[in-house]
């Protein structure tokens, strides 16, 4: 009864085919696809309607699926031109979310009424390839444009295709016939067996295989032993449901045991309270105490407790901010991983306080160079065959960008703030940071909007998407390193529209009607975490697993509770509000289901088919996992690196042009342009600024349309510095975040920070030692600037273990990476500034001290990579250090100068140093510059820098490049009294970019123009 409808664009209209053809050719060049001739590619969108529809009905439905001006349809059969070389059909595997099919289904149901339980809709896409390619190439094209983890790829040769074509495609989920819980007899289990279960998971009574990691094996399976002890005490064995739910709740992902662990007890530098309490939350507490002492306003409303950090905005609104990572999912399925990342983090806004409306996204990506092909394999078979090749860096980059694009754009939330950093150490695992800011009313239904509390007697309600097998073991998986045992079920697909409806229903209606008392996200760990976490607010909860709406039958109760299917939230709804709540959800087309009740029993309970399948003491459930005790090491010899020995060239023009084109410095326009940064109308300082559209270091958004208040946001990271000292890596990230916000008009008094640690091999004492130093820097720098940390997240095992193309085992640790995100409330966005030079004749200033701090610089990396016989970066030794006393003075003075309108442009000097900041200022303004750096020496703003290349490219913190209207010169210099600054030249009309040492032309060492610089800056990622 399944029938096929196909839609194809008329000749010459569909641009997708040509784009795919070009990409195939590029992949052939890269060697990913075997060489061949591709003349054309056409795309056919196909739908399988697995429902009892008569011919007339089918034709009627088909007409609703096309635009008659541009598209043709085929009903009940397929487009089968006879000159096709290969046809490739890509559909979803059973159980994978098919958003297009859902839309089709809703359209049909709206016309014909509900479909039956056995009826279904499915979408596929067919590529028709003309040319001359081998069957191997056809297969490779299939895997290049689909992901075998979630998609089914079918190939047909031209002749076969012309004769038969693809039949209707109905992927059906078949699971257990009799899904039920089982009891796991751990009380009598020997330790070694217990350890295996703790790592690999419960053994399935039916197929006798491990079900997937519990990750309860840390410290010689200590958590598992504690569980055994607990059940010994209550005199029964746990169910699989209980073990799985405990594993989720106790996972590194949820409990952050490494940040909580007591470190180095019995040494000279003990941290009994652990890193988080001492250096992160501890720093914020110190800052708040200092504010109090100074009589300053404490603008923090909720820190480190809710789904987001929450700060005051104005009398009516608060701002929520949260940054997450989605690294592990993004390597299995870059698109799915990043889209669920960004759509998922939005629920941290909607689930913050009583529900904040997301108004701005952040992103930051750490990738390996997409131009380098490096084959990595997860597995090696006994016969030496390499298996499970990891996706190429290019595919990962493309997929991740695509996912954030769809997730952000389709949600109607702008994505202005972000960037990308490239390094080979991200070839095993990319880092995908996604963040969201939300607008939360200070008052909801007469109570503070940032507080929430479920009450005993409230109903447990889940809203949004249904539960499927997607994302099972996500929380425990991301707490593990990537190896051959990584489960494929960890992949999820996001549906931004389902969530958009949910978010509208909550933030634009239910919240302000006061229809619920508490709300939280269903993220990692699924219901097992969200419901029982919320239950802490009142003291217990009982849920009936049978009531949880499922995508398909056959799921076991443990799977239902830990599934990480997306777009779901859990709420506590008072009984007298439930009717009205359900009506609001129905109007917004949001599925809502009562699955249980909150109580004050002190127990977390779940029933299934009338049996109790989970019954745990709340205290044990949440606090039963004891603090870990760990040792760290710090071995200075590991961080000694060579510096380049070559001389500086006399003409540094080529160096500058090459630097501007480096992946880490070049324009990210390719990314920014794909992300909607204007929706909601709040964009003030955009991701790219000036006529020449250069990347801004920070963005400014006005979240309330009729108010001129705004927020400056930025992000900063310096992973390469970790090779020398993680302390300075972290210090520089904070310093830069603060400086970037000052540059666009932020105020030190209203800034807060978010920390995201992405570490590697964190079970190794040396890595923990690096972590300890980074956390200490967070404490030192944030307290020096009184800029508190308000929210954070860690991802501790970003390590790939597998094989290189020769079959040698390799381990790729990411660079220990701390990303600092800045949030700065601005009283008046009209005081903002951008980095592009505005007017010819303006004076150019360098503010701040330049030191010989070339360690970990982009310049050293370039010199090393280009050195004959070396081909890899230099790290060097002089890592930039942050002088917080000096920088604080500079930042205060600059803040005042920007707010007073004394500067016409302001750039924060970052990676690439002074030369890059000057060049970006010129490119942004499409104006030239005439610079004499001798002034810097004469004015004493250079400390021991002998080489001019080092002067241009040093990474010293605390610096700005500023242009000033000559009529403002005196006022500007007056404001900067006591701060290191130097007037170095002028902005010129002629577009020439000249840098010299001393005023004579013979001393020129950079001589180029804005056009050439812009071309270098823009060309690298163009065409990606």
């Amino acid at each position, binding site marked *: 009864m399944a029938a096929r409808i196909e*839609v194809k*664009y008329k000749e010459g209209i569909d*641009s*997708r085919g*040509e*784009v795919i053809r070009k990409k195939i050719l590029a992949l052939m060049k890269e060697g990913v696809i075997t060489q061949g001739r591709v003349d054309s590619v056409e795309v056919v969108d196909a739908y399988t309607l697995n429902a009892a529809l008569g011919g007339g009905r089918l034709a009627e439905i088909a007409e*609703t*699926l*096309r*635009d*008659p*001006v*541009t598209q043709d349809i085929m009903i009940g059969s397929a487009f089968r031109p006879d000159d096709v070389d290969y046809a490739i059909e890509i559909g979803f595997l059973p159980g994978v979310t098919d958003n*297009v099919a859902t*839309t*089709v289904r*809703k*359209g049909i149901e709206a*016309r014909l009424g509900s479909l039956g339980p056995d009826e279904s809709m499915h*979408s596929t896409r067919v590529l028709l390839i003309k040319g001359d390619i081998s069957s191997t190439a056809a297969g490779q094209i299939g895997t290049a444009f689909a992901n075998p983890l979630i998609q089914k790829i079918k190939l047909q040769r031209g002749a076969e295709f012309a004769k038969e074509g693809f039949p209707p495609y109905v992927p059906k989920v078949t699971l257990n016939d009799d899904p039920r819980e089982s009891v796991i007899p751990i009380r009598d289990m020997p330790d070694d067996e217990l350890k295996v279960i703790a790592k690999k998971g419960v053994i399935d009574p039916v197929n006798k295989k491990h079900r997937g990691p519990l990750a309860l094996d840390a410290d010689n399976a200590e958590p598992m032993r504690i569980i055994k002890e607990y059940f010994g005490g209550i005199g029964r064995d746990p169910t699989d449901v209980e073990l799985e739910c405990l594993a989720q709740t106790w996972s590194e992902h949820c409990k952050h045991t490494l940040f909580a662990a007591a470190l180095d007890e019995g040494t000279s530098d003990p941290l009994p309270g652990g890193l988080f309490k001492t250096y992160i939350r501890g720093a914020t507490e110190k800052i708040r105490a200092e504010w109090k002492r100074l009589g300053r306003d404490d603008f923090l409303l909720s820190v480190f407790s809710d789904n987001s950090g929450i700060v005051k905005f104005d009398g009516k609104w608060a701002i929520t901010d949260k940054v997450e990572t989605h690294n592990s999912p993004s390597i299995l399925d870059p698109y799915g991983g990043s889209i669920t990342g960004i759509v998922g983090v939005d629920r941290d806004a909607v689930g913050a306080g009583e529900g904040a409306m997301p108004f701005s996204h952040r992103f930051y990506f750490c990738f390996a160079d997409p131009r380098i092909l490096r084959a990595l394999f997860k597995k090696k078979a006994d016969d030496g065959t390499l298996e499970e090749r990891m996706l190429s860096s290019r595919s990962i980059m493309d997929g991740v960008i695509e996912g954030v*694009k769809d997730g952000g754009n*389709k*949600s*109607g939330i702008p994505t202005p703030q972000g960037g990308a950093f490239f390094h080979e150490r991200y070839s095993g695992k990319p880092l995908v940071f996604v963040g969201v800011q939300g607008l939360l009313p200070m008052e909801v239904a007469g109570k503070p909007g940032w507080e929430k509390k479920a009450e005993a007697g409230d109903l447990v309600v889940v809203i949004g998407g249904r539960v499927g097998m997607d994302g099972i073991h996500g929380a425990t998986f991301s707490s593990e390193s990537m190896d051959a045992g990584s489960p494929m079920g960890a992949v999820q697909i996001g*549906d*931004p*529209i389902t969530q*958009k*409806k949910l978010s*509208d229903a909550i933030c634009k209606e239910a919240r302000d009607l006061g229809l619920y008392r508490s709300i939280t996200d269903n993220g990692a760990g699924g219901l097992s975490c969200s419901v029982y976490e919320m239950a802490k607010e009142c003291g217990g909860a009982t849920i009936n697993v049978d009531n949880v709406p499922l995508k398909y039958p056959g799921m076991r109760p443990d799977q239902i509770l830990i599934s990480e299917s997306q777009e779901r939230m859990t709420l506590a709804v008072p009984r007298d509000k439930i009717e009205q709540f359900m009506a609001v959800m129905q*109007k*917004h*087309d949001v599925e809502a289901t009562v699955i249980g009740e909150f109580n004050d029993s002190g127990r977390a309970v779940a029933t299934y088919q009338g049996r109790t399948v989970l019954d745990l003491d709340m205290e044990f459930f949440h606090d039963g996992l004891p603090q870990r005790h760990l040792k760290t090491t710090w071995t200075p010899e590991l961080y000694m690196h060579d510096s380049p020995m070559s001389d500086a060239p006399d003409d540094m023009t080529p160096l500058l042009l090459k630097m501007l084109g480096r992946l880490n410095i070049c324009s990210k326009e390719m990314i*920014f*342009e*794909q992300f*909607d*940064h*204007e*929706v*909601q*109308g709040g*964009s*003030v300082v955009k991701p790219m*600024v*000036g*006529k020449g559209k250069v990347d801004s270091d920070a963005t400014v958004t*006005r979240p309330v*349309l*009729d108010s*001129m208040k705004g927020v400056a946001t930025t992000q900063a990271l310096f992973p390469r510095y970790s090779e020398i000292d993680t302390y300075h890596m972290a210090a520089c990230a904070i310093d830069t975040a603060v400086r970037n916000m000052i540059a666009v008009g932020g105020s030190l008094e209203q800034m807060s920070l978010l920390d995201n640690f992405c570490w590697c091999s964190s079970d190794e004492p040396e890595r923990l030692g690096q972590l300890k130093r980074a956390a200490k820097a967070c404490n030192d720098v944030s307290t020096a600037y009184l800029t508190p940390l308000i929210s954070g997240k860690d991802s501790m095992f970003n390590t790939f273990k597998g094989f290189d193309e020769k079959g040698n085992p390799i381990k790729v640790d990411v660079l220990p990476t701390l990303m600092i995100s800045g949030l700065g409330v601005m009283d008046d966005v*009209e005081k*903002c*500034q*951008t980095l*592009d030079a*505005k*007017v010819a004749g303006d004076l150019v200033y360098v503010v701040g001290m330049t030191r010989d701090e070339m360690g970990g610089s982009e310049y050293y990396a370039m010199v090393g990579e280009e050195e004959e016989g070396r081909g890899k970066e230099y790290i060097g030794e002089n890592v930039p250090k942050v002088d917080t006393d000096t920088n604080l003075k500079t930042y205060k003075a600059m803040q005042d100068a920007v707010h007073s309108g004394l500067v*016409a442009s302001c750039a924060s000097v970052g990676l690439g140093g002074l030369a890059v900041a000057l060049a970006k200022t010129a490119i942004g303004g499409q104006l030239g510059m005439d610079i004499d750096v001798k002034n810097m020496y004469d004015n004493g703003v250079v400390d021991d820098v002998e080489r001019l290349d080092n002067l241009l490219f040093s990474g010293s913190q605390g610096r700005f490049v500023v242009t000033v*209207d000559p009529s403002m010169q005196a006022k500007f210099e007056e404001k900067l009294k006591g701060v290191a600054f130097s007037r170095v030249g002028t902005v010129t009309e002629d577009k020439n970019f000249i840098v010299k040492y001393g005023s004579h032309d013979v001393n020129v060492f950079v001589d180029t123009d804005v056009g050439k610089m812009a071309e270098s800056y823009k060309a690298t990622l163009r065409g990606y």
Partner: protein
Amino acid sequence: MATTTSEMAKPKALILSGFGINCERETDYAFEIARARPQIVHINDVIAQKSLIRECQILVYPGGFVNGDDTGSGLACANYLRDRLLEELLRFIESDRLSIGICNGFQIMSHLGMFPVGHDRYLTGDAVQTALTFNTSARYRDLWVKLSADPASKCVWTKGIGMLDLPVRHGEGRFYADDATMQKLRESGQVVFRYVNEDGSPAKGGPANPNGSLDDVAGICDPTGRHFGLMPHPEVAIHRTQDALYTLKRELAKRGGKDVPDETGCMRLFRNAVEYFK
């Protein structure tokens, strides 16, 4: 606040929302500034209470990603609206009232058949004669563009407007029609906006045309000029701080001893609509 007589004199703008529409708030705000009486209403509420359409003077299809653009931008939503609101919409068109579709809203209006060319059989299959399809790059783009109003345009929304700066934000905005339709569209004054170069010269399919639109067309209207659709987003380019070159314009004005006007050219579109009912 009690509704005063002056409030009543303001035309009512009904702004559709729901199912992935996502520009309703800023669009609502633009109409508010223009002194209309805007009201954001969920599509399902309009269906449940059809009088809402009867009572409004301006019907607004805002931008967004309705139904995730699955099966084609705006297509599923157009079907949904046509199935449920056909008579109301026909009555709306017959009376002397206005509608506007921005970006995804333009796509919805286009699929609905709001822009008949050479006839007046609105909302029928015959009236689906123009289309908005994949950008030539097959990629979503957010960038600022310059528009020039066609002086021959009948559109009541663009009276007095010459050129505008505003952003496009779409993946499927390439305007398409067959040659005959294109010819008639031009002759009947239904081409409203074209993408132009910075100096105002025709983009001629060059970089200033961000999506490869035929004849650089960025917006069209129906034969009466009352129903208008455009791909770029005027509703986020109404205040000086939203301008992509705000800090530059501010600095240049300051040097001339002036201030940048609060309001930018795009507000004129919304004000024109309100003026129409005076």
